[in-house]
């Protein structure tokens, strides 16, 4: 294991301390719990948006806490859910009377704990609604969308729900918009190499030399196609076609594209891939409103990428275009 760290068991805490040391002007701890982070300044009457999940996916999840996006986040160990208690503490902190929306990925531990946190909040009369993002088309077949894992596409849910809450819309309204994003976003990933959980010290899954695994999850969950690494154009075709038929995205549709690097894969390769994405979309008569390319949801040093497509309408476009400003993500008005 070649990583810049001190003690593996201190990895997450020291990472958070580093983030706080760098961005204390924007972020603060909730009652001194390193694993509970929220914006330095809340806004009265605004719906609070909370997320949470395991570490090892920066900018997920903590990185999207900031202006125009999220208000708070609970941080778990590497690939582990934070506790219901921590989620509840964040909930209390960010509630400004307008209620709190939970947005998180479709993983058993997280669901269980957020449900629990919601129950605790309910006991203290804090109104909580939940949106569970699951858009990885490789993780479950059509018809079983509710079983799909949440991956990079959750970025769009954060961005758009965040802008909507920023408009001081009601909790129900912010949830409605967030659900709309979930309904219109699809993702497919491909992995080239595994990653190492510091406390484990060795890869918890393998990808053979010269092999790739299409559809593999960000924790190494098995994918749908294992085999020799193909040329970028072929890989993109397989991924994008699976995405396109799933929603489906049809001729005349307008989309936002997210080219996401899993960690080790350089931007050069993301753009080689995007070249083909653009070619295919053009041929299919699907227009691209905006392209995001970079690292939005990672698995530490894992090599690989994911492609996400969000089908837009005027409302989603309006909120996607709004400026946002967090320590990990900045966007001017599009």
């Amino acid at each position, binding site marked *: 294991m070649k990583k810049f760290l001190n003690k593996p068991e201190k990895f997450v805490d020291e990472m958070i301390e580093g983030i706080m040391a760098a961005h204390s002007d924007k972020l603060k701890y909730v009652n001194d719990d390193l694993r509970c982070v929220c914006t330095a300044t809340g806004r009265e009457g605004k719906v609070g948006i909370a997320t949470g999940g395991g570490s090892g996916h920066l900018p997920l999840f903590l990185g999207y806490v900031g202006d125009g996006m999220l208000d708070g986040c609970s941080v*778990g160990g590497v690939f*582990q*859910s*934070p*506790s*219901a*208690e*921590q989620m509840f503490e964040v909930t209390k902190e960010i509630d400004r009377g307008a209620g709190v929306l939970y947005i998180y990925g479709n993983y*058993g*531990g997280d*669901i*269980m*704990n957020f*449900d*629990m946190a919601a*129950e*605790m909040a309910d*006991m203290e009369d804090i109104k909580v609604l939940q949106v569970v993002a699951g858009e990885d088309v490789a993780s479950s077949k059509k018809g079983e969308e509710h079983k799909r894992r949440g991956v990079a596409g959750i970025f769009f849910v954060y961005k758009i729900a965040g802008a909507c809450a920023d408009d001081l819309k009601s909790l129900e309204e912010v949830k409605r918009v967030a659900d709309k994003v979930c309904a219109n976003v699809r993702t497919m990933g491909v992995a080239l190499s595994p990653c190492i959980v510091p406390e484990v010290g060795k890869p918890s899954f393998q990808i053979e030399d010269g092999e790739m695994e299409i559809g593999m999850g960000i924790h190494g*969950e098995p994918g749908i196609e294992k085999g020799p690494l193909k040329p970028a154009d072929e890989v993109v075709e397989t991924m994008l076609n699976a995405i396109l038929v799933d929603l489906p995205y049809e001729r005349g549709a307008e989309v936002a594209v997210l080219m996401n690097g899993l960690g080790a894969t350089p931007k050069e390769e993301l753009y080689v891939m995007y070249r083909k994405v653009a070619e295919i979309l053009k041929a299919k008569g699907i227009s691209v409103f905006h392209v995001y390319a970079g690292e939005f949801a990672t698995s530490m040093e894992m090599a690989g990428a994911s492609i996400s497509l969000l089908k837009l309408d005027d409302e989603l476009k309006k909120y996607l275009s709004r400026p946002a400003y967090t320590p990990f993500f900045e966007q001017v008005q599009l």
Partner: protein
Amino acid sequence: METLSIDNVKDFLTKMNEVAASNKDYLIELDSKMGDGDLGLTMAAVFAALDDFASSYEDEDIGGLLMKGGMAMAKAAPSTMGTLMATGFMRGGKAVKGSTGLGVSEIAAFWKAFVEGIMDRGKSKPGEKTIIDALYPAAESFEASAAAGEALPVASAKAKTAAEHGRDSTVGIVAQHGRAAYYQEKSKEIQDPGATMGAILVGTFVDFITEL
């Protein structure tokens, strides 16, 4: 003895704390086979927190004790079973809110709500190789006994057996939840750690009653 007083319940919680502590290594070993091995630690932690809370509980509403005790457990440990156990006590307590003594029917109501709370929280049902497989039959048994008007000792004995059978039934089925599910077929031959813990919980409760 046909009804449990709040002091009985507190004594049970103290005993359960001891039992969880003494089973720590056993549960760690069991959970290590196909989990992350933390089960022993979490169980010791949550039942210590529950006992701790109970000893400082002033009110005489047993439901409140168990419900708020569940909240205390939730703060003590994040892992799946910690959250599920906490949920069980919260929901079970809610079901007997206001009672100052627990008879067979209250006890049946408690376990029924306990297991349903876990099923609800875990989106799981019997036969999926989880703690449910131990708790669900036990709850059913208590319910039947209550309906048949059986005495607490009799009802208890039946419930314990039901829980143990349920635990044993997890051998031979493929895990569908938690880390064990990643192992698919390989998970078949292993006795589910959660179900094992479930049987320990019911068994301890029953033994406590019969010793009264």
